[in-house]
């Protein structure tokens, strides 16, 4: 699947999430290093409250059998964790990168 289609899907999905969950302050599309059929979204969530030390682990949000052309993976993080990730992207899950990121809605 070409990147324009993947980006368009990521934008659409990110906007759906922002509309539904008012706790989200940023949705960021992270294409760098992702398989062609994978959409990675990093979602900054003011309502997350993870227990201290909880690792940054993404979840897959798509069923195993789906008509969607993309697999969707989402990493929920707090605003503090987002600041840490921006200062040190190495703490992202293995294979995830901030390179070529695209912010979807609600500012930078």
């Amino acid at each position, binding site marked *: 699947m070409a990147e324009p289609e993947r980006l368009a899907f990521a934008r659409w999905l990110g906007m759906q999430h922002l509309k539904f969950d008012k*706790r989200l302050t940023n949705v960021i599309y992270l294409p760098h290093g992702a398989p062609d059929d994978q959409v990675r979204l990093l979602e900054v969530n003011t309502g997350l409250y993870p227990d201290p030390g909880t690792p940054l682990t993404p979840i897959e949000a798509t069923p195993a059998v789906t008509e969607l052309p993309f697999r969707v993976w989402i990493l929920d993080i707090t605003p503090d964790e987002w600041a840490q990730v921006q200062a040190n992207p190495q703490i992202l899950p293995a294979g995830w990168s901030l390179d070529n990121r695209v912010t979807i809605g609600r500012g930078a």
Partner: protein
Amino acid sequence: MNARQLAFFRQASSDWDIFHHLYLDLLVFPRCHEMHYLQMCTEKLAKAYYVVPPRGHAAFRRLLTDMPLNPAVLAPLGFADLASFTLWSGSSAALVGAIEDLAPAIADVKHLPNPEYPWPRGVEAHAPVDYLFQVEIYDLIDAQLASGQPAFLDILEQMVATMQATPWHL
């Protein structure tokens, strides 16, 4: 379901049974107990849906956010199409957030009452058994009912009944 998902699902199902029992006997036990089981049911049900669990206690909103990507959820829950589900989830958004806020780890941070432990932490002066949760939860249940959408608690009951049986979990 993997073993972790099944364990969370079985506990969520039991939490729902206890909640439902207490909810029907509203005048017998303090409301905090049914609120406790309602919060636990929703959190564990959300953690049962995913192969890897969402981070933190606020998992149920994550589930409702992601459910539209899974068309297998619609029929078991009685929705004819995605638009119907979206209208229902929109009508339930405030209530879902309020239920998540019942988790003590979240309630403490947001200076809200919780159904498990006396509050505020460190200078406890209020017991959950003495608190009605009227504004926090019951008014929102009534408001969601008044929206004309399917009742939140009816859909939650269907989620518990069908997530494994149909199945529609990931």
